[in-house]
């Protein structure tokens, strides 16, 4: 009985669960092959910090693909904005804390330019952003021409990509020695919040007499999610705790997840992606939505630029190279559909983690870069093939 319910619930959301399953398999395989090194706290912490900028870009790219466009310019835009913040700090004396709003605004402005080309002038996004790709690449080279790599000395700035949140209790205390207590507390709070919101949603649905998951299945789902969140925080807590990068990524994902699933704006974005003409006739301005999505993408590119520059503690002439392709790959692994109107923010985060896990795991195993590219390509193709097949079956 429970098994049947469970199977039904799984089948209805097969695409979502498969992605988690894929992630689990990748992690299990690498853990076995590296004798546990892959799942070590230290490696996972590093992995998350490396995933940061791709995850942030993938979130924006998902929205762009949902409204049937593409943005090729974001890689070098991120690189250019990273360099711009470096210059702002080293030459104009901008304080480290101001770089994030600075990068977000600069990115949004760049996104609005793209939006203008696409929505107002009707230029295909592929072409408009290819032009952007060239222009931002040129701008990046131009601003770093005299200096080459710009070293960033600002401690606050460099902590964004390398630092960890402070602990409230000293780590030498007798209680749980060697573990990061604040991280554990955050994990517990997350579990509590998640469970409470799920239970509330279920109750409210029952109040209207709607169909809900059977109680045992619901309990299993809750317990499973609690375990996953708990396990991740446990691993984080075993090293330096939660990194600032992880905090930023979580904030971005939570905000965008909320906007896309709960707000009028989010619903308009998916309607425009699903059928732009029907959306327009329903009183939604397709142009406005296009502007907003490209501006959001630009802002996230700015943030990604900050994350990357901070991670390297410098702005380099090659920053941003291929980022756009990584982000597109992560979005597609995460289940976005090129046909428009389909794709979830949580999916793109998992897609980014899957993608970076592959890279990290293969690096640990010293797999040659040539083979790495091939493996990544196969995983991308497999994810999309699976996507197309499951969609077809459900008709």
């Amino acid at each position, binding site marked *: 009985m429970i098994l049947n319910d469970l199977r039904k619930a799984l089948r209805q959301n097969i695409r979502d669960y498969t992605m988690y399953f894929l992630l689990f398999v990748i992690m299990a395989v690498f853990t076995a092959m590296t004798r546990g090194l892959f799942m070590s706290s230290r490696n996972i912490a590093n992995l998350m910090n490396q995933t940061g900028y791709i995850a942030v870009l993938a979130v924006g790219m998902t929205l762009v693909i949902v409204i049937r466009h593409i943005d090729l310019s974001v890689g070098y835009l991120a690189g250019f904005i990273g360099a711009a913040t470096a210059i702002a700090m080293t030459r104009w004396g901008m304080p480290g804390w101001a770089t994030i709003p600075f990068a977000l605004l600069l990115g949004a402005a760049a996104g609005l330019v793209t939006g203008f080309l696409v929505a107002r002038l009707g230029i295909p996004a592929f072409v408009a952003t290819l032009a952007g790709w060239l222009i931002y690449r040129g701008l990046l080279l131009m601003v770093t021409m005299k200096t080459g790599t710009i070293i960033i000395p600002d401690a606050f700035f460099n902590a964004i990509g390398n630092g960890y949140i402070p602990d409230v209790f000293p780590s030498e205390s007798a209680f749980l020695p060697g573990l990061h207590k604040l991280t554990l507390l955050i994990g517990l709070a997350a579990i509590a919040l998640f469970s409470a919101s799920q239970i509330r949603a279920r109750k*409210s*649905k029952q*109040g*209207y007499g*709607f*169909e809900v998951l059977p109680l045992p299945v619901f309990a299993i789902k809750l317990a499973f999610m609690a375990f996953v969140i708990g396990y991740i925080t446990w691993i984080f807590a075993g090293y330096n705790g939660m990194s600032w990068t992880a905090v930023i990524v979580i904030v971005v994902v939570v905000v965008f997840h909320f906007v896309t699933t*709960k*707000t*009028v*704006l989010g*619903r*308009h974005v*998916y*309607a425009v992606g*699903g*059928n732009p*003409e*029907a*959306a*327009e*006739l*329903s*009183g*939604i*301005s397709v142009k406005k939505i296009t502007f907003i999505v490209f501006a959001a993408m630009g802002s996230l590119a700015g943030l990604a630029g900050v994350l990357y520059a901070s991670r390297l503690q410098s702005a380099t002439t090659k920053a941003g190279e291929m980022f756009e392709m990584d982000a597109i790959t992560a979005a597609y692994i995460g289940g976005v559909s090129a*046909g428009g*109107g*389909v794709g979830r923010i949580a999916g793109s985060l998992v897609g980014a983690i899957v993608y970076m896990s592959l890279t990290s795991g293969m690096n640990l195993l010293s797999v040659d870069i040539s083979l790495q590219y091939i493996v990544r390509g196969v995983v991308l193709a497999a994810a999309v093939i699976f996507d197309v097949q499951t969609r077809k079956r459900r*008709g």
Partner: protein
Amino acid sequence: MENVRTMSDHILEMRGISKSFPGVKALSDVTFSVRRGEIHCLVGENGAGKSTLMKVLSGVYPHGDFQGDIALDGEVRRFRHIADSEKAGIAIIYQELALVPEMSVYENLFLGHEIRKGSLVDWNATIHQSVALMKRVRLVADPSTKVKDLGVGKQQLVEIAKALSRNVRLLILDEPTAALNEDDCDNLLEILRELKAEGVTSIMISHKLKEVIRIADTVTVLRDGRTICTLDARKGEVSEPVLIKHMVGREIDNVFPPRSKKPGDEVVLEVEGWNAWDRALGRQVLKDVSFKVRRGEIVGFAGLMGSGRTELARSLFGNPDGYRVEGAVRVESTAADFRSPADAIGAGMAYASEDRKRNGLVLIQDVKQNVTLANLRAISKGGVVDSNAEVKVAEDYRKALNIKTPSIDQKVVNLSGGNQQKVSVAKWLFVKPKVLVLDEPTRGIDVGAKYEIYTIMNKLVEEGMSIVMISSELPEVLGMSDRVYVVSAGRVAGELPVAEATQERVMELATS
């Protein structure tokens, strides 16, 4: 011996065909026989299984995907894909035409089986043969015209010519006249008769029973995936009441439901001297159009396809096509200047478009998302959608309009045409409009669903809403409207109170 003779009489016999989709039995034990050289019409409500049956025949669903036998000329055939059935001389022409709009007529005619000279395409021979094919289907056009520059009626003829170029023996037409005006319909039916004289057998799926009666030698009625009966027109077995009775399994006494209330006097929508120019094509699409709509009134807009009725509705509804427009619009005596559909909706207008799949619904989204799409603000607070309120709204409309769907979480793409149309109507009712414009509200939907739509329309006007109905089906316009405007070539050719409007009078104006 008797058996062998009847078998060779039949070009096609489908026996005991059953086909299931997950959760639905689309066809159960269907028998369908077509005699050589006849025009055989296949009728039934939406979801009766007509299209599924034709897909089984053409190999879209390969052998093994269904139960039962298909025999051509008495010989059992197993089609694995469409190419197999094409080779056997079967051609299907779907409602959505399979032509390449950017290519010329002659390129389309021989697309996929080009005439070759060595390894190159022999364009001269192609054009030469195209002219002959076009003559056969009476298509008057330059063979080098791009298909996108032809009207729908002529595009249909290109499809038929294309089938002929492949030596078709069994031509299947799925709702060929749904998008055609009366002249094009007549022309098409005439061509089917000529092809019959040449020995081509045709199967025609149609909702238009008058046409069926005009053209069919034999009619098979499907209902709920079963063969109900096969009627022989030459024995006088086919008539409209008989067909409707078999299709719906019940008698419909009144095709149009009665209305209890008269319209009011107050003018809700007034348009004066409305002109529109299509910038891209550089031509005037609407000329000096004026009309009025009163509270609680159904105003019909009749006219031929391409007369400008849809252009009129869209240009008034916030002008999404970007025409250059000129003229005065007043909603409840307040001058209006709609810059976008959003403005028009805000002022109390709603427009349910004529092509619900292309620009009416978001097919990949579910029923509730489509119902609330145009008025999400009503169920949101601070920009956050209240999903419980949304479900409640959608459930209410599902019940009120009797939308047949397993649940409101079902994707709209999986619903039948009539139920999709109800979802589209529900979406517009939820914006609580003063004036609801319905563009071809019953196109491609079955008799039962039509009656339900009419009933809903009557209820709405009795509650004080005003409805503008654009329709190419004259009986519908005359049966439902209080007043009728006839549009012809972008002008209002005449206004008739319904008592004076006869089919003849309207057609006279429409062709003026």
